């Protein structure tokens, strides 16, 4: 059992407490979902349970924490490691060794276990997580999902009583994320583990959670069952939104729990005739990429029109990022690439980016200037363009960054930093925008702001290609969808079919209203619903 009493914490040189008078209890063997906006203190709360806060971070602390009868504030993380294991957000940054078995055994080596016991525990953890064939592999050769499982195995091998997972599925495709969560659920039942998971995409974890800790951002923490907490939250998954609107009680946490006795009144189908097709902005035909002898992309053909948002989805390692890089000419490719009907085959990168703005997966890579405004100036200078301060400030306002022109970009929140990077790549108004995993690490609020921004750009006739694992986000935006697997296009067309029928990409709305054709919250017409 975990008990926190009147806990306060303030980071060094910070003016305010990130956690303020937090008191809660977590029963043994439960799975607790920790949620809240970015910067609300989720990671701080989790790190205080294994002693990393304050031993690793420093800071002012008061109150009491009891984890399985131990006091992490006094014992520190090295001692707490005997009972508490932590899996951090990005597996890549927590790997110490380069071989799978060495990495998994790290904590055991330092606990001084005998070699046979160690080998047996490593074998068991690998078998349990389905990675027993990977033990002698180099970690760098593994996929994102496999790496995630290795970090889980490294945590489980010490046979902890408390497992802390900080956004364990943030980098995974829906199938990979679901697989990991099922493993975690299995662990709980087999090992009698207490599990704490921090996650932005509630829809992924809610079905499995016994209780929730909600950090509203004012330093406090609210704890209770999902039924208690969800009504207090402003931004929730579509299933909860619909259930709230229908005043369902208790609130379902899984689409299967949604009442089946609702019927949807049919409406007379109206046939709309498309009279105007916008001109294509980006055309790709038979694009192939081969790297180190391996076929990464195989004859990809697609078109994005002006004012269209295309969502590109597919499993980790399918070749989505490579396609974006190939469009820009950053990797050698074969096939045709046309922008506004003109081939860009022999164009330099500098010429191509005049028409295509590209936001990579880590927007931090773009930011280096002293102020947000300077970031825009740098891009303009690179493009030999000039712009008045007023125009730049207007651009910042459009992206919701007004008032931050003189802020240091790296001091901003995750969502703000991403918008600064977006401002930097769109200040010269490119007609085509490519976005690679733009919702990674974003909370619901930031995601909503991004959706609004992309819709504004769509109205301005920009062609937007978004690579994402976030099904709900893609469903909100996409005019067309492209599903990618092993370097090939497996589906390219209108979104409704994918989001209502494909088992891997079905949205929550489509799951709770099967056969309705609805896949977004905005599609739900409550007046057509009736109970039978």
């Amino acid at each position, binding site marked *: 059992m975990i008990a926190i009493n009147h806990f306060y914490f303030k980071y060094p040189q910070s003016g305010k407490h990130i956690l303020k008078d937090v008191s809660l209890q977590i029963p043994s063997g439960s799975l607790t979902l920790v949620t809240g906006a970015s910067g609300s203190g989720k990671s701080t709360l989790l790190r205080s349970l294994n002693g990393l806060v304050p031993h*690793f971070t420093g800071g002012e602390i008061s109150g009491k924490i009891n984890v399985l009868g131990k006091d992490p504030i006094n014992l520190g993380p090295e001692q707490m490691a005997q009972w508490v294991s932590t899996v951090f957000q*990005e597996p890549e940054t927590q790997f110490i*060794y380069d071989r799978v078995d060495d990495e998994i055994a790290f904590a055991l080596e330092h606990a001084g276990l005998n070699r046979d016991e160690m080998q047996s525990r490593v074998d068991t953890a690998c078998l349990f997580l389905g990675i027993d064939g990977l033990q002698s592999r180099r970690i760098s050769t593994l996929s994102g999902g496999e790496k995630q499982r290795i970090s889980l195995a490294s945590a489980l091998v*010490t046979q902890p009583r408390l497992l802390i997972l900080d956004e364990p599925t943030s980098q995974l495709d829906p199938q990979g994320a679901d697989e990991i969560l099922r493993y975690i659920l299995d662990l709980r039942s087999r090992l009698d583990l207490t599990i704490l998971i921090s996650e932005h995409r509630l829809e992924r974890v809610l079905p499995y959670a016994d209780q929730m800790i909600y950090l509203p951002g004012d330093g406090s923490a609210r704890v209770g069952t999902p039924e208690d907490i969800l009504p207090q939250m402003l931004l929730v998954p579509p299933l909860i939104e619909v259930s709230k609107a229908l005043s369902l009680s208790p609130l379902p946490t899984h689409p299967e729990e949604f009442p089946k006795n609702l019927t949807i009144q049919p409406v007379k189908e109206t046939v709309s005739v498309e009279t105007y097709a916008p001109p294509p902005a980006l055309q790709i035909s038979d694009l192939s990429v081969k790297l180190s002898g391996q076929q990464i992309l195989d004859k990809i053909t697609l078109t994005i029109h002006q004012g269209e948002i295309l969502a590109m989805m597919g499993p980790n390692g399918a070749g989505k990022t490579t396609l974006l890089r190939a469009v820009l000419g950053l990797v050698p490719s074969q096939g045709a690439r046309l922008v506004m009907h003109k081939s860009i085959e022999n164009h330099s990168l500098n010429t191509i980016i005049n028409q295509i703005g590209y936001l990579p997966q880590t927007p931090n890579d773009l930011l280096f200037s002293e102020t947000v405004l300077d970031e825009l100036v740098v891009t303009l200078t690179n493009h030999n363009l000039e712009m008045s301060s007023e125009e730049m400030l207007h651009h910042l306002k459009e992206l919701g960054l007004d008032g931050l022109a003189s802020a240091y970009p790296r001091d901003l929140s995750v969502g703000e930093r991403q918008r600064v990077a977006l401002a930097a790549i769109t200040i010269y108004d490119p007609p085509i925008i490519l976005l690679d995993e733009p919702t990674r690490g974003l909370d619901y609020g930031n995601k909503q702001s991004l959706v609004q921004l992309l819709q504004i750009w769509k109205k301005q006739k920009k062609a937007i290609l978004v690579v994402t694992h976030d099904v709900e986000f893609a469903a909100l935006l996409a005019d067309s969808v492209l599903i990618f697997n092993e370097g090939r296009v497996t589906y390219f067309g209108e979104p409704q079919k994918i989001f209502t029928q494909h088992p891997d990409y079905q949205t929550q709305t489509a799951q709770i209203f099967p056969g309705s054709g609805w896949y977004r919250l905005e599609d739900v017409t409550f007046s057509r619903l009736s109970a039978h």
Partner: protein
Amino acid sequence: MTNALTWASWLLASLAILLSTRNPLLLSLILILLLTLGTRMTEPGSRKRWLGQNLSFIGTMIFLSSLINFIFTHSGNSELFTLPQSWFLIGGPFTLESLVYGTINGLVISSLYLTFAILNKALSVEQLTRLIPTAFYPLTLITTISLTFFPSIQERTAQIKEAQMIRGNPMKKLSDWLPILIPLMVTSLENAVQLSESMTARGFQTHTEDQKSPKGLVLLILSTFLVFSGWILSLFSYPSWTSWSLYLIAFLGIALLFIALSRKVKIVHLHKDRWTTADIAAALLFLLISLLMVSLIISQKTAFLTYDPYPTLKFPSLPLTALLLGLVPGAPLLFNLSHDRH
């Protein structure tokens, strides 16, 4: 040949040979052998890329080293042309000898680089860190972080460079690299903090007893004193064995201290480094060669390995003993180099 200590003895022998010779024929032979070894140790699909990258590095290194020596060293009899003496630093005769000397420097640097690159390929990070005495545990932490980070920093540099290029940075001038340095430094620091946080949370150094011992400190001071005494004696006309005896006692003292300190670190490694017959044979061979090289260096009998292009350039000779020693860095080619330690 998979044992970390066998590879360490290979490194020792190779370094002893490489640092004792300036014979361009011998160095070229070693370089070719190291390139062959490195290529064989690379996965078949990536061999071409590895060879290409290393050849371009070696070419650049030799070119720069030759150019710098050619421009700034004005010794040698074979004058190619002369610039006025009044020209700061570069004024004077430009000679063939200085060009060759620079090329030899380039060959030495390239061979040293390849030797370490091969060691890095042969051993896992865990094996490499195990080569550091457990007494230096904090050092192991830093080494682990560096070894884990080096490839990721290269990867990050490429990613950030690409991100800046798609923002319109032409990456042509030196100042164009500034936008790469700041994100690289910040993300590297962030990643280093995350890694050390992960190590702490996973119980790094939990079972290490307190290593501060007054006896150990006394032994360390005494050993250091003996080393200095030996060095002072060597400056005067005392027989050389007196200095060497003091060095030996100091060495034993320090070794004892390390053993005692290492015993306090209770870490058990998952894999016992396997000793195959090939490993034992190779380790013995490399240790014998290392000892031979050390004795040759001490007795100053390494003339057969040396070559000096000054004052007048002449074609280097390659005695049989030198040729045989030159084959040593390539000796692992005779063994099975599988990575599998099970």
